[in-house]
């Protein structure tokens, strides 16, 4: 059947099972939007293209399906860059479709022209510029294959407007394969056997689980593996939910702001079984001092992740979906009561805790998140921005289930949390979705509240407002002699002098979040003391509208414990937050 390029695009998306697209139209995307007008695919018009990418990204992370976003040429395309880079770092499968100016004027500095494929290249797993309408089916099929298989990631397709208008025969390709793209899915049996042997002989094994476990939906088999070999499990930020938080083998989050026991466990274990992780610097600290006494097994689908930062004794390249069940079969039943007792003692020495020293008019953020955790039993879907609040959320909101803690781990994209909450809610409408954010991070993307209201998705946003860019301020406090450059929201230029910081109780914060909430027609609740927290949350759960809870947090609150950047995990600072 003859179709226009635009019709082919939409038909392919339908056949790929796309239910929802996030984005903003423009001049050269009109042919595609004209077809979408009559299509059953839901279109979510966002306020900013970056918002659309984060929504598609979180939609993918929450559902396990490929997220789709779209933008026009030029500025539309360039606005996608941060979102694609975020998805790339965290291996989230999304397809970004941009339109391009007419083929015959590409390269002539036409209106709204940018070299989109050139710009996106370093932040995508692959990208395409379609130059012939007959290529559309193959390109879209390949894009979905590439995005969702191997180590997942974003794929970008740039389609000139004349290609969307051109007519050609529509020929669906049933089986798609790419000769230069064959991710290694099966783990090598010999490597799996070696891994099982190491696990059998280990006295102090530790499972180190990351985002790969979440992305491959292998939390269940990971749990069984941990149970059979009696291995304690520590997760990364991206691996939150890889094992239920209340499982007896779960010891907590590791890394720069991780639990004391986890970092101690890393340093004292004799076998580290790394699954779906990439030994990020925020986890390892100083590489030469990282886990010095252990043999290391590293299971990952991406060969370039293995041996990149840390030398591995037994590398296993393969999909966790294939490798973990084999490994589970091959491991011996073990029991390590001594090791577990030792870890328990360490945890009791320095549990994750915070001081009960709320200053008047302020609330401890940890208390709020802990309360949220209790009230939701760890079963809400939590998204976060980036900064102190993100680390507090990681410390105090250990998820019960995978795909329920969504955060920008690798790129650390401030502003991610709120649009992510919208995308995640659309993927899991039955879930309570809570965005834990900071005042700095939230304001980067809060324009998307209009999208949430219009699309009738209910999000509970908890904004910890400490009137500062807290994480940066914390580093200035600890490592830059308290010279607070550009971190104070209430001071001109953000500059504050130690001892003469602006007092948030005297200087009005801009914007007034309660008035802002009112302007968007949502429920605004301000929390200044601990005894308001529970009722605020109850009210939020009950509300049928979106809710903004603004929690006053003192500017001096820190994220603790902390391993200073570049220091070894042994040099953990234990001052209680």
């Amino acid at each position, binding site marked *: 059947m003859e179709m226009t390029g635009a019709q082919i695009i939409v038909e392919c998306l339908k056949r790929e099972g796309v239910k929802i697209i996030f984005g903003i139209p423009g001049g050269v995307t009109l042919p595609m939007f004209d077809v979408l007008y009559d299509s059953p695919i839901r279109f979510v018009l966002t306020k900013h293209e970056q918002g659309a990418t984060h929504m598609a990204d979180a939609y993918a992370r929450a559902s396990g399906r490929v997220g789709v976003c779209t933008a026009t040429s030029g500025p539309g395309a360039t606005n996608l860059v941060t979102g694609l880079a975020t998805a790339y770092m965290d291996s989230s499968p999304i397809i970004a479709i941009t339109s391009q100016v007419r083929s015959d004027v590409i390269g002539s500095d036409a209106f709204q022209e940018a070299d989109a494929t050139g710009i996106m*290249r*370093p932040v995508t797993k692959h990208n395409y510029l379609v130059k012939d309408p007959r290529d559309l089916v193959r390109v879209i099929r390949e894009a979905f294959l590439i995005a969702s298989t191997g180590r997942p990631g974003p794929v970008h397709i740039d389609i000139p407007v004349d290609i969307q208008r051109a007519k050609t025969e529509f020929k669906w390709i049933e089986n798609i394969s790419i000769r*230069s793209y064959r991710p290694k899915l099966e783990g090598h049996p010999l490597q799996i056997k070696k891994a099982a042997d190491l696990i059998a002989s280990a006295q102090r094994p530790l499972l180190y689980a990351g985002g790969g476990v979440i992305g491959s939906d292998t939390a269940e088999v990971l749990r069984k593996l941990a149970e059979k070999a009696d291995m304690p499990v520590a997760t990364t930020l991206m691996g939150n939910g890889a094992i239920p938080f209340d499982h007896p083998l779960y010891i907590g989050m590791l890394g720069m702001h991780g639990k004391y026991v986890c970092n101690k466990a890393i340093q004292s274990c004799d076998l580290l079984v790394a699954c779906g992780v990439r030994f990020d610097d925020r986890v390892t600290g100083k590489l030469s001092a990282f886990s010095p006494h252990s043999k290391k097994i590293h299971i990952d689908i991406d060969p370039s992740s293995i041996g990149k930062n840390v030398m591995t004794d037994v590398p296993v390249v393969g999909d966790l979906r294939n490798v973990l069940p084999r490994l589970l079969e091959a491991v011996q039943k073990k029991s390590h009561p001594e090791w577990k007792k030792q870890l328990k003692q360490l945890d009791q020495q320095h549990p994750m805790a915070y001081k009960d020293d709320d200053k008047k008019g302020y609330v401890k953020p940890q208390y709020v998140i802990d309360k949220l955790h209790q009230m939701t039993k760890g079963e809400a879907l939590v998204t976060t921005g980036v900064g102190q609040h993100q680390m507090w959320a990681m410390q105090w909101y250990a998820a019960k289930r995978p795909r329920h803690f969504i955060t920008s781990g690798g790129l650390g994209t401030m502003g991610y949390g709120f649009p992510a909450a919208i995308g995640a809610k659309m993927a899991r409408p039955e879930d309570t979705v809570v965005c834990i954010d900071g005042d700095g991070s939230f304001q980067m993307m809060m324009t998307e509240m209009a999208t949430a209201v219009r699309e009738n998705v209910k999000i509970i946003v908890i904004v910890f407002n400490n009137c500062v860019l807290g994480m940066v301020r914390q580093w200035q406090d600890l490592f830059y002699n308290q010279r607070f450059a550009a971190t104070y929201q209430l001071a001109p230029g953000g500059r504050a002098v130690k001892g003469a910081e602006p007092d948030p109780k005297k200087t009005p914060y801009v914007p007034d979040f309660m008035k802002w909430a009112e302007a968007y027609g949502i429920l605004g609740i301000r929390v200044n003391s601990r005894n308001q927290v529970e009722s605020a949350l109850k009210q939020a759960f009950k509300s049928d509208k979106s809710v903004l809870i603004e929690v006053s947090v003192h500017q001096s609150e820190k994220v603790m414990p902390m391993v200073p950047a570049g220091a070894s995990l042994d040099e953990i600072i234990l001052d209680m937050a």
Partner: protein
Amino acid sequence: MAEKNEFRHTISCLVENRAGVLARIAALFSARGFNINSLAVGETENAEVSRMTIVVQGDDRVLEQVEKQLNKLIDVIKVSDYKNTPHLERDLVLVKVTATAQNRAELIQICDVFRAKIVDVAHESVIIEATGDEEKIQALRDLLEPFGIREMCRTGIVALARGAKELTLSEPVKKTGQKKS
């Protein structure tokens, strides 16, 4: 860059003959601060497939990482680092040298020794064409220097492994007639 474990690596890649491939590969090196010493691209025995030969200096471990990253690129079919493989390298150079009737004979002698050819003769200069590995080209260059090198250009190193080791598609290419994009 610090002189730690830096060695010269000759890396050969088989890639799909498509737009954007060169940019992706170049970006992998530039993002790590590698300077590419030479880069040669051309069609292989199969028109759908190009072969790139890249010569870089770098730390072995970092280069291993780059090789893995190259393999990750969708349009890259195969990658091989020839550092520890017996192989042949050739570079073609064109040099325009100042030459007069008086010293032309001497130039011809040098060319004979290097099995180089004089491919153009003008009143005041000649163009010499030579092929060889880097060492040979360098030696020729040293000898030509006193005559006055006016212009020089090189194709970049191309390399093939000796003997049985081959870098080819493991399967015959299907002639699908797909358009290159």
